[in-house]
């Protein structure tokens, strides 16, 4: 980059180099100012919440606020842990996320493989039927799905939380695109070698599509973990709630009297996702970005 721009400045016009340097300086200043604002907008709230989680109730209501907790209240965390109750909600969130992501992905993998590689009459019609489901968001189906799950007797159960989420339209579409982009020769070679569809899928397609699958697993898992509307309506007991709903009820319980406990609970909910995100952020961010630009 710097080589390119250096080469592009004609050596014989020195005045343009001066204006150019001034322009570069302006861009630089704007750049670091923007960066500072961005960090302030994200960093300051984060810091404020972190110290808030360690403050005693009377300290939280003191104006002007302290910038460091006078006496760190680590008990806020244990109070939140018990009040929520966190262990069971964490288990619920984990079960729902894993089961729902796995079922969705298995559905998507088989369906996408069929759409991409098994050529039978009527395939296009079937594919359009799946595409159509892309336009039916969860929010629109919430009441009928509640009625269905409730008539099956699965309200207030982890199974009931999982069931409406196992179908897959977006992941099927996304994977089919990825499968079609795989090198044709390798697939043909597998066919020539006499590999059946299951063998081709398992030994050729899935290993080749690994990066796309990883992105898809992450996207699906994050969406499932954060899901709010369905777990809110499909549960009415603390023991079947997931964390995003649980932390909201912790706020309703403790309300504005125990902000320290609520904030501690919020941190407990957010921490596992932040840790996971730090581990996979490069892959996740780049996967999303390239998917959007190509697609």
């Amino acid at each position, binding site marked *: *980059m710097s080589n*390119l721009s250096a080469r*592009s400045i004609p050596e014989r016009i020195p005045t343009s180099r001066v204006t150019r340097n001034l322009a570069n300086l302006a861009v630089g200043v704007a*750049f670091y100012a923007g960066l500072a604002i*961005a*960090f302030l907008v*994200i*960093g*300051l709230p984060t810091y404020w*919440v972190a110290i808030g989680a360690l403050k005693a109730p009377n300290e939280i209501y003191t*104006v002007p606020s302290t910038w460091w907790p006078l006496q760190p209240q680590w008990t806020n965390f244990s109070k939140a842990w018990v009040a929520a109750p966190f262990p069971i909600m964490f288990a619920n969130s984990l079960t729902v996320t894993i089961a729902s992501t796995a079922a969705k992905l298995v*559905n*998507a993998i*088989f369906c996408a493989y*069929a759409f991409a590689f*098994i050529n039978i009459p009527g395939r296009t019609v079937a594919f359009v039927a*799946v595409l159509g*489901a*892309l*336009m*039916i*968001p969860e*929010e*629109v*189906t*919430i*009441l*009928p*799905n509640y*009625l*269905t799950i409730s008539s099956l007797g699965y309200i207030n159960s982890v199974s009931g939380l999982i069931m*409406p*989420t*196992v*179908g*897959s*339209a977006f992941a099927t579409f996304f994977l089919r695109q990825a499968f079609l982009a795989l090198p044709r020769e390798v697939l043909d070679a597998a066919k020539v070698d006499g590999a059946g*569809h299951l063998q081709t899928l398992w030994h050729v397609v899935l290993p080749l599509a690994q990066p796309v699958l990883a992105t898809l697993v992450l996207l699906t898992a*994050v969406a499932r*973990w954060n899901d*709010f509307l369905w777990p*809110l*309506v499909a549960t009415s007991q603390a023991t079947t709630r997931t*964390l*995003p*709903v649980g932390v*909201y009820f912790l*706020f309703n319980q403790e309300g*504005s009297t125990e902000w320290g406990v609520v*904030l501690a609970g919020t941190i407990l909910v957010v921490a596992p*996702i932040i840790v996971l*995100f730090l581990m996979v*952020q490069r892959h996740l*961010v780049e996967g*999303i*970005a*390239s998917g*959007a*630009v190509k*697609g």
Partner: protein
Amino acid sequence: MRVGVPNRSATAPLLNVRGRDAITFAMFVTPNFLAIGLFSYWPLFRNFLLSFTYWDMIAPEPIWVGVDNWIEVFTSTTFPVIFRNTFTFTTVSVGATLVFALGAALLLNQPLRARDIVRATLFAPAILPGSAVALVWTFLLAPNFGLVSQAAVAVGFPTVRYLNDPSWAMPAVLLVVVWRRVGYDAVIFLAGLQSISKDLYEAARVDGANAWQRFRHVTIPGLGPVAFFLLVTSILASFQSFDVIRVMTAGGPVIATRTLIYQVYQEAFGAFNAGRAAVYATILFGLMLSVTIIQIRMVERRVTYE
């Protein structure tokens, strides 16, 4: 004649393969079709049916009332408010998100050592649960002791109960929704910026284009497809925004922050009126479908003319 024999025996298994393919196809797609049928298509249809009934979900059967619910909704004083709220919420959140995201992406597109860290920091709010983010901001926006309130007072503004004030509740919710989404859109804008060929900038520079002209004639057209993608996905996402509103204002004060999706929830699980909830859900579906159809049309047109 002799050549024909092996040929014929080769076609026989070929037909079998086709038959086996059909069975494999059916086995591969059926589970997904059942799930989609039961939890996407059937609910859509059932919403439509329910919209012509009165049902409190306690009585054994819904009662057929024809188009009463539709008339009731369209003639109510609530509907225009909800429509206006949804319109404000969508246009402001999408507009502000895209503008800030583009700005952030342009900044991040400069050569910078710590770009990955900055990018990850910006992106992080998008992957956090909306309810947790909403709680954080409920705390920051709290009257008197909240960070925002203290900052406002410090520069001479009066303290406001942002989430309980009819004219402040919507801006407060919008702030949080935008805050949460900007990083996600910025990352995609950034990828779009980086996919624009460096040669184009070089050519423009050789032709004597200044920074603004390069932005106007190279960057903006180059970002077109990405910007359009983001516009559509952001509009659809804003129609689906529920958790932040639920936690911060519960649609209030009164109905100041009630959007279509919130109204569906409210009618179904607050008022237990399945018929009216189904009307609002069907309207919401119609809106989202229109946006998607417009998107498909636009993409088709671009493909044909290029």
